[in-house]
């Protein structure tokens, strides 16, 4: 099957797109050895700084570098403004959906989304029912995954409303590019992103009704794959990085154990899944959480960001309804498109999926991180057959989408520069206002032809530029 890809740097006629011209001129003028030497320098610096992640399923717990590519992904500012508005619109609707779902459930009563789709969902948290949150915000930090199809149209691939990660790479990639190639930043106007930690802290503070609340970052610990990011954000914001054992609840209030005795905690930016937050309320075997946290939360004595129970809104089985949510809550037309999605739980759609597996991408509705998915065109017949059986056994656990021809961006590979597929994750902060720093995290699938960009599956990252045009 022949696909046409949208390339970020070159148009269909092979001409360099205007917003890449400055970069292309620089690239042509810069000697190869210098570029190679700078790339080695980048590797060394990342290693020394310990900007690593841990791979699950690796017994050794080896820390790895996420490969960093020195060719940036560039977006013209006029185009970015549309993406930005689209992301903000989407996250606003999703927050309104969550508030509605845990209160009146108007959207169900209106018949727009079937009740069992959400209420029977494992991610729906009864504990959240009727609980009023400050500003009605559930997802304070959201990541919206975007890809571009053959004609360059942006599609939302999925929403991440639980504990989206990757923002530290966005910031470190920029720092690295500015360090290695300062001349590029002098030659054109690239929108700055370094203020993200400030915006994050502001968002977290504004999530609490208290003036100047005490904020902490809650991490599962140093063996978590994203520990680097947790520590990074805590440091950049100047707040404590705590583990579950550092916190305790007394009289329904949360405190941290300090060298100077107990100290009150008002806002917890938690990078821990719902199930592990409180062994008294959720998984009793969780050693990572804080006993009594849920009760304190329900009493309104502490803010969790993101809120408990946001997973029901970024579940892949709820994803197909997001465009309708935007119309329902905001009375606006969606700015960003959804990828057409077949839900295997519907018998008619299931048979279509089973008949067309080699062309489709099939995902678990509750999976994340690129684990447990089938990319039809890249899979062997045996893999497809095995997956078919899994879908038949649990059809409600899967959705399918057409294989998008993700856009490509020139990337350094072993034999020089070649196009590789990329996606984009802007980070949306919801507080007093809803904001996005320009750009986001661009992930790149380094294997030729691969469409899977997750770092756990061999993906790398690129600096993402929003360039004034």
């Amino acid at each position, binding site marked *: 099957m022949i696909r046409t890809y949208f390339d970020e740097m070159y148009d269909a006629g092979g001409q360099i797109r205007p917003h890449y011209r400055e970069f292309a001129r620089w690239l042509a003028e810069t000697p190869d050895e210098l570029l190679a030497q700078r790339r080695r320098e980048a590797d060394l610096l990342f*290693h*020394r*700084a*310990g900007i690593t992640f841990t791979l699950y399923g690796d017994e050794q717990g080896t820390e790895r570098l996420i490969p960093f590519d020195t060719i940036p992904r560039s977006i013209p500012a006029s185009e970015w403004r549309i993406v930005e508005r689209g992301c903000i619109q989407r996250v606003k609707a999703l927050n309104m959906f969550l508030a509605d779902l845990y209160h009146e459930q108007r959207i169900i009563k209106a018949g727009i989304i079937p009740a069992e789709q959400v209420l029977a969902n494992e991610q729906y948290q009864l504990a959240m029912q009727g609980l009023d949150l400050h500003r009605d915000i559930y997802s304070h930090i959201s990541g919206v995954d975007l890809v571009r199809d053959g004609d360059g149209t942006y599609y939302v691939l999925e929403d991440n409303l639980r504990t989206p990660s990757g923002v530290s790479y966005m910031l470190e990639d920029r720092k690295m590019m500015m360090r290695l190639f300062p001349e590029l930043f002098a030659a054109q106007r690239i929108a700055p992103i370094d203020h993200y930690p400030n915006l994050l802290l502001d968002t977290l503070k504004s999530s609490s009704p208290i003036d100047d609340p005490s904020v902490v970052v809650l991490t599962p*610990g*140093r063996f978590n794959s994203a*520990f*680097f990011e947790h*520590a*990074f954000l*805590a*440091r950049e914001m100047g707040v*404590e*990085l*705590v*583990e579950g*054992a*550092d916190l*305790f609840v007394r009289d329904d209030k949360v405190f*941290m*154990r*300090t*060298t*100077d*005795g*107990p100290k009150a905690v008002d806002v917890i930016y938690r990078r821990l899944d719902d199930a592990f937050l409180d062994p008294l309320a959720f998984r009793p075997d969780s050693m990572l959480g804080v006993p009594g946290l849920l009760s304190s939360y329900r009493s309104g004595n502490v803010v969790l960001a993101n809120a408990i129970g946001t997973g029901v809104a970024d579940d892949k089985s709820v994803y197909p309804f997001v465009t309708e949510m935007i119309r329902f809550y905001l009375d606006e037309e969606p700015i960003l498109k959804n990828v057409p999605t077949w839900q295997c739980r519907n018998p008619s759609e299931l048979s279509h999926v089973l008949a067309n597996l080699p062309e489709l991408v099939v995902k678990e509705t509750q999976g994340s991180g690129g684990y447990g998915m089938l990319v039809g065109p890249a899979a062997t017949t045996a893999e497809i057959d095995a997956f078919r059986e899994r879908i038949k056994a649990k059809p409600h656990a899967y959705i399918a989408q057409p294989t998008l021809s993700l856009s490509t961006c020139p990337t350094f590979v072993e034999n020089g520069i070649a196009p590789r597929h990329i996606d984009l994750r802007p980070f949306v902060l919801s507080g007093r206002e809803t904001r996005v720093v320009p750009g986001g995290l661009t992930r790149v699938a380094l294997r030729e032809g691969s469409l899977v960009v997750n770092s756990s599956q061999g993906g790398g990252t690129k600096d993402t530029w929003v360039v004034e045009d």
Partner: protein
Amino acid sequence: MLSRTASDLYWMSRYLERAENLARMLDVSYSLSLMPQDGRGDGLHELAMPLLITGTLDDYLERHGELHAERLLHFFALDAANPASIYSCLGAARASAHAVRGRITADMWENINATWLEIRGIANQGLSRYGMSRFCEWIKERSHLFRGASYGTIMRNDAFRFIRLGTFIERADNTLRLLDARYEMAGDQAEAVSDGTAHAYYQWSALLRALSSFEAYTEIYRDAPGARHVAELLLLRADVPRSLRACTEEIDQILAQLPGANGRPAQRLAAEMDARLRYTGIQEILEEGLHAWLTEFIPLVRQLGNAIHSSYLEAA
């Protein structure tokens, strides 16, 4: 500050200081093992000294059976399976630093992380290829660099205090143990003041060099090293940075600066130890017997460490 954070900072610097001290021990033993051995043979006993001091000789014998120069050195310096090796200490220091990345400066973290990456490279090529003396020098240098990065970059807050607290507790313990071991090795002649035998001379000067105190010694005493002056220098002189007195003085001051009332037991203990050293003369110590005096003092340092733990590092 979070008690866990304080604990990680404290142990980070304790392990680093320990790695440095182990390298110093190794350095003195290695150089003495190359000396003619008074008919005792091949210097193996000298090479076993660091293991004896750190209480790991039994572990070694269990694993390797007999004394063997290369295995001894590897076990002590680079063996990842030996939790008390220099390699393991640096690993533990780096793990603690990793956990508190947010509380130390980038300079400090990158320094300790680079040290860890490098020692793994050294472990791969082996000690004999890298060179023994070069290795000990390298460890000391990395420790100096880290201290320099700390002093030069970190804010003067509680994080800084817990880092220094770890350093001085570890150093105090180490100086006591090293002195005790050398005193025993110097044998019967040890009691003699400035005794002229070559054996004792090399024992004492190697110890002074290992503790970077040789220059201080010659400046103060202008005499060949002997038990009395060495003991006075390393126990009672507040102006010698690796002496016991210098350590207790630092600890006493740091503890006084920490906030909160829960630190009183540790503060009292430190003040008592400091006062005891301040108002003791070397004659008194020698009359009691140096070994007996040291045997009494070593547990006090451990007790102080425990008091710091229960006061700050595991407080609720």
